[in-house]
């Protein structure tokens, strides 16, 4: 309810802003232009910061210790789609949003379109910070606008392939490096009674990661209107590939994140998982009996010899619209996501994988991981992070896209319809949703 009102007003404003940023002439939305106002506040300030990152208080405590005049108060809640985004929108409407909020990459356009983000580009040191971050993450927080930075990247989810090194070796199957080899391996594994993977019917953002790797783009924005393309050439290729595996019963279709899904990995029924860096802990926790037998390799490629990677997950620290202290908030956001101690603390309590280039060199990522037979798995992910296409754009209504496509996908895995049909119907429902929110969209 609140959203749609904000959306209607905000969408127009934001899109105008998107189009006009280059020649922004001020008005109430001044801090966009270079040399705009992002000045320090007088006297001590207290900032509020809402994040669902477990244990983020520990990193914040380091800041509070070092900055007695800029104290940060942590607020918490469920993950973004679990309620915190809706809370942010309610708070923006009521005028009591926190100064800073955690927002995932795929939700950034939603907040941008609804004018919920402060442009902190004019704040000291922010534009210069670009070099510190993995390239693709920076384009996600600027939306390609000039002199605009709407958040500081926090963590990422570069994708790779977790696989059972012991099973592949025992069966004499080479570890696949292309999707073609992957399909061949799938058939061999099926003959042995196993499955090569589980097709995750409800993790649409994981599927998006596969499309991302293939070079597909679901959304585009030319500054005036949005373009939706859930059925482009690359997406179709990925969808048909997995549909083929499903049709031939070469992949399992357990609902992800359930006990039976964990059990399938724990009992060695499933041999690989193409997933993000944080998945390392998921397997270790869900399949304890398989410890030591896993390894990590880059994602299989569409063309042999390439090294493209997708990304699944990751978030930012954004300064929300209406903050009284954007300067201090921006300084904190930059510190939180670049300081080695802060990143180490967040990795310890919440397993985050930093979005900075140097973050990949933190001591914790240099060690071999016992669960993966002592392999230094984070080297694979660091490499993957550098190979993520920076041009992928999320749409302003991803929650709706995920829900609609997931409905179709769960039908497809049980034999009614196909993945491609699900995406086709997602395409039209997404265009309808954008129109309903008064967001200009190309038919």
């Amino acid at each position, binding site marked *: 309810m609140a959203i749609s009102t904000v959306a209607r007003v905000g969408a127009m404003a934001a899109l105008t802003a998107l189009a006009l940023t280059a020649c922004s002439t001020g008005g109430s939305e001044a801090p966009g232009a270079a040399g705009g106002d992002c000045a320090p506040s007088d006297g001590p300030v207290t900032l509020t910061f809402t994040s*669902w990152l*477990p244990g983020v208080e520990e990193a914040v405590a380091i800041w509070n210790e070092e900055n007695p005049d800029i104290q940060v108060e942590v607020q918490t809640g469920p993950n973004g789609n679990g*309620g915190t985004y809706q*809370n942010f929108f309610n708070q923006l*409407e009521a005028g*009591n949003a926190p100064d800073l909020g955690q927002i995932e990459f795929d939700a950034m356009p939603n907040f941008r379109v609804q004018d919920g983000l402060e442009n902190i580009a004019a704040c000291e040191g922010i534009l210069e910070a670009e070099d510190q971050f993995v390239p693709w993450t920076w384009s996600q927080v600027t939306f390609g606008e000039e002199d605009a930075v709407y958040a500081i990247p926090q963590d990422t989810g570069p994708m790779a392939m977790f696989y059972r090194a012991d099973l592949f070796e025992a069966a004499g199957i080479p570890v696949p490096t292309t999707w073609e080899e992957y399909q061949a391996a799938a058939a061999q594994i099926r003959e042995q009674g196993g499955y090569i993977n589980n097709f995750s019917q409800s993790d649409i953002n994981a599927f998006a990661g596969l499309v991302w790797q293939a070079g597909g783009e679901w959304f585009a924005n030319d500054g005036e209107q949005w373009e939706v393309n859930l059925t482009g050439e690359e997406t179709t290729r990925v969808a048909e590939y997995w549909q083929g595996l499903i049709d031939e019963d070469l992949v399992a279709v357990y609902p992800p994140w359930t*006990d039976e899904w964990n059990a399938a990995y724990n009992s060695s029924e499933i041999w690989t998982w193409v997933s993000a860096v944080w998945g390392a802990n998921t397997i270790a926790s869900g399949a304890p009996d398989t410890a030591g037998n896993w390894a990590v390799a880059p994602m299989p490629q569409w063309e042999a010899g390439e090294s493209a990677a997708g990304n699944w997950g990751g978030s930012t620290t954004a300064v929300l619209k209406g903050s009284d202290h954007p300067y201090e908030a921006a300084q904190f956001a930059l510190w939180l996501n670049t300081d080695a101690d802060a990143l180490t603390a967040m990795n310890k309590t919440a397993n985050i994988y930093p979005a900075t280039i140097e973050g990949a060199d933190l001591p914790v990522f240099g060690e071999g991981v016992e669960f993966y037979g002592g392999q230094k798995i984070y080297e694979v992910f660091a490499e993957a992070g550098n190979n993520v296409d920076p041009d992928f754009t999320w749409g302003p209504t991803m929650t709706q896209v995920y829900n609609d496509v997931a409905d179709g996908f769960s039908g497809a895995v049980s034999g009614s319809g196909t993945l491609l049909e699900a995406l086709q119907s997602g395409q039209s429902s997404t265009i309808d949703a954008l129109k309903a929110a008064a967001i200009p969209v190309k038919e």
Partner: protein
Amino acid sequence: MTATTASPRSANAVTPRRARGSGSSQHSGIRESAVSRTIAMAVMVVATLYFLTPIWWLFVASSKTRADFTTTAPLWFADFALFENIAALFDYRNAVFLRWLANSALYAGIGALIATIIAAMAGYAIAKYTFRGRETLFNVILGGVLVPATALALPLFLLFSQVGATNTIWAVFLPSLVSPFGVYLSRIYAAASVPDEIIEAARIDGAGEVRTFFTVATRLMAPALVTIFLFQFVAIWNNFFLPLIMLRDESLFPVTLGLYVWNTQVSQIPDIRALVIIGSLLSIIPLILTFLGLQRFWQSGLANGGLK
């Protein structure tokens, strides 16, 4: 919860009547066939299993170690680690779970108590005093029964925002004090169980209106009051959406919201799943105890309210 306790109770209520029926059947010839009785029993057994199996699963799952949880049969015990799990839960993040339990007890316990008093006074007033607009007022309150609490959460958030009271205890506590259903039940019950003559007698003896209400009327209305208390207690304990929208400070969360928040962190910290499960088990115990303790009153209260 309601359904779980309701089905065995209705079973009890039915059985004595049947027993009496078959006892007198030697004379009257009315006899229920063994077939229909068996079918009725079977339906009830199935219903009971349906409601109790998840609780059984929860109990068994809570007693397992993290490794056994995914690897052993879901409905039977492996290594019994219930107390280790509870200790781990209480140890996590400075015992924040205990804080949540205490918050829930506060919101639900004190909230339901005050809600009951307010509802009883309002219902009594509408039943026993004649004033202009009485029926209109009652109808408006009755309309309130039809509005789901969830629909009011967002408007309440905007209202509390205007006075700067979001993210405080009051944001959850104050809305919990309102129970339109309680007012409705109080009115019906007061009209039926508090005779005007007693109120007259109290007045003649020199008691003021307030004293009459607290010393005379509340005693006669006791079963209804217990009913209202129980309804409101359960409603507040299970209320999730309002705290979700209102609260940001972890130390103010009720247990429902706290467990939900943890559950959304499973992809980041898979191990937290075990804590969510053991926490869920502990969080329903106060509800079960409250029901077992008060269900006798609750039963007679509902029955009376319905009959009269």
